[in-house]
């Protein structure tokens, strides 16, 4: 008997659709705010609940997991006000400005420029819409918008991993790696979720591009589109991650150039909706606005103390994941089958760490201060990306065993 994923497969494609619908809400909400309007959060809730029922009719564990965990996340968030620096002074302060000024571009009007007014506004726009639902602003409930930002990722994870066991393992990795950073109002954990899913989807697209049926690559590219949209509009660093994620899908785009339209369109959307207004307002990102980047970088490269701090930082925050990354890389380098599909994703991961290194070497802040205030959040993308690719590898191995299972039989044993 040939093992088939038929019923599971259809519902998982539906979960991709759910992810697209929830992302469509976020896009429409952003566009509405740019015109001084907003979309009611009730629409989001309706799509969320309907998606759970529609997608996972035959998989109650998916429904229980996503619904229960979302509820727990919201309850935990509601238990105390936003206190952490970036969350309070950047993301949710921008949300407050959007709420009171009825404009997506409120933070560009010149008030409190020290609050990094160039930072993108996806989560602030969701928080402002949430506040409009209740009719007032406070220090607590708007932070529940991070769950709204994560929700498309939950459904996308179900699409990527298919079987519940692997989906739950991935979801567990997200929580165990990112922990409180998922809920405290910082964007780094959310960015890591979408980057890691994007890498797995890139690998899926590369594998599918060898399939003669053209429809098989459109699905992963739609997922990549969801990730690109979220990454570019969650935080500035997200755009770099989005570009690296698209790089990981180059083999698929090489074979099917039409698929590259999806990230291109979303890049255009990002530029027109956000980057252009920021540029017209004359606001620069703080890391590049300060002079002397090159001289600082050269000075730190020659300073052994700086290297000591950097090596300690990268070792302390990522060492458990280097072994898995090494295993995947060795496999990708020495296996012809893997090179095409997996190597670009692994290069994207290491490229991100290189970008971080350059940022730290050229920072205009004191390096020790910058590293201590950054903590482990900036390496979540690498850590979670490595684990996600590892789990996706397991999924592929399992599928191969299933596909070949009919070749094996034992006398007297019913299969």
């Amino acid at each position, binding site marked *: 008997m040939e093992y088939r994923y038929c019923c599971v497969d259809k519902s998982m494609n539906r979960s991709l659709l759910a992810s697209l619908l929830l992302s469509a809400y976020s896009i429409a909400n952003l566009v509405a705010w740019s015109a001084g309007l907003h979309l009611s959060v009730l629409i989001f809730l309706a799509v969320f609940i309907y998606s759970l029922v529609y997608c996972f009719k035959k998989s109650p564990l998916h429904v229980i997991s996503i619904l229960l965990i979302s509820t727990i996340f919201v309850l935990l968030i509601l*238990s*105390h006000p936003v206190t952490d620096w970036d969350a309070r002074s950047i993301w949710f302060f921008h949300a407050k400005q959007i709420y009171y000024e009825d404009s997506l571009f409120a933070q560009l009007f010149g008030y409190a420029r020290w609050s990094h007014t160039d930072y993108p506004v996806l989560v602030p726009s969701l928080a402002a819409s949430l506040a409009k639902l209740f009719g007032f602003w406070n220090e607590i409930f708007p932070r529940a918008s991070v769950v709204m930002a994560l929700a498309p990722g939950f459904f996308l994870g179900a699409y990527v991993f298919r079987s*519940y066991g692997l989906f739950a393992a991935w979801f567990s990795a997200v929580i165990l790696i990112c922990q409180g950073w998922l809920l405290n109002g910082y964007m780094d954990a959310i960015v890591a979720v979408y980057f890691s899913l994007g890498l797995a989807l890139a690998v899926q697209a590369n594998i599918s591009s060898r399939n003669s049926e053209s429809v098989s690559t459109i699905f992963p590219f739609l997922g990549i589109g969801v990730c690109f949209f979220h990454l570019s509009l969650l935080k500035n660093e997200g755009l770099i991650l989005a570009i690296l994620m698209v790089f990981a899908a180059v083999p698929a785009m090489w074979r099917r150039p039409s698929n590259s339209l999806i990230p291109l369109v979303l890049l255009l959307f990002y530029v027109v909706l956000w980057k252009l207004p920021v540029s017209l307002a004359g606001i620069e990102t703080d890391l590049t606005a300060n002079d002397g980047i090159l001289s600082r970088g050269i000075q730190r490269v020659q300073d052994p103390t700086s290297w000591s701090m950097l090596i300690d930082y990268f070792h302390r925050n990522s060492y458990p994941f280097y072994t898995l990354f090494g295993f995947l890389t060795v496999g990708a380098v020495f296996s012809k089958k893997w090179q095409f599909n997996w190597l670009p994703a692994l290069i994207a991961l290491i490229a991100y760490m290189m970008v971080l290194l350059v940022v730290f070497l050229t920072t205009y802040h004191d390096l020790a201060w910058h590293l201590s205030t950054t903590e482990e959040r900036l390496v979540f993308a690498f850590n979670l990306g490595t684990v996600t690719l590892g789990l996706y590898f397991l999924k592929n191995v399992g599928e191969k065993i299933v596909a070949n299972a009919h070749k094996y039989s034992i006398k007297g044993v019913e299969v």
Partner: protein
Amino acid sequence: MKFSLDQKVKVHKAGALALVIALMTVATVLLVLLIKPFEIKVSMVVIGQSYQPMTIYHAGKIPEFKEDEFQMTAMAESSLTEGLSKVEHEAKIRSALPIHHVRIDPFTKSGEVLLFEEVKMGAIDYDYTLSANLLMAQASKGNQLAVIEANEAGVKLSSLGEDPHFQLRIDKALVQEAMWLYIFRVAAILFFVASMMYAVFQIVENSTAIGAMFYEFYASSIGRNATRTVSSIAGFLLLAFAVYQLMAMHTWWSVERVKQAFVADGVGDSVPAEVKTMKELITKHNVQEYDLLGDLGQGKHYNVVYQRATEYLYPVRVKEGVSNKFIKTEFIASTLSAGCQEQDRKDGISLLLCR
């Protein structure tokens, strides 16, 4: 030697059973040890001749300090006169068991002198500052160090040996585990055990491939639903563990706090008292824009009060040169002679109207 199919099945069943029992035991122990609901924060402001990295250890009711340690993170350092440096250190410690003692290792070499200006202990919503007397009493029982002086400025200690350290006893309020978390922890352990027993039952009944050593047997049995069931159970348990660990970081959670989340203008827990007072005065006098004078506005956005005021009082904006100004009441005298009138005052904050 060829094994019959029956023998293979028996070996696989026994192997699978042993593996799952081992996993069950390890998972239960991990659940207790890896979930760390007890958290304290220790912060110190220390003045010395040079930057001093510090180490902190923690222990339970009996102060046996194990090797796990935490480096106290040094915050912004500001240099004072006479070649001294002021450093703020902070450490967050999480533990599976209640923390009753901490040990501070403040010195790196013999002969150094440090002034402990402030020592605070806290959890997320509760903290207390150790008085100079209390700190001196605890430090004087320390090892290889001496108390030179204790007054309003702080407690001055000097190192007398190669491993100077002292202990601090933690306030009782910081060591209590929330009852809901305790009950949940017991329930979670029971759930884990029950689930693992169900998994064992599934494996024994269906002789699935977990623990199988032979690829062909594994491949031929992969189609059985039991394997998917067991992997789903394993995934759910892992997810439950991950979520539970996240919940354990929120030991202060309560229904009353969640109710506060929907109070208009919320709870300004993260906002200094001065800013909350300003909010009341702004609302009472319908102030549209304000300026901050003296301590309140010194350093602009590098000043905590200025920052929090900018965020919390918005959409009422801070703007230099406007007629409504806030100042600490103790400094009001100089402003009154400059053409300002006091409109109102509350809790040490005055609202001025200046021409």
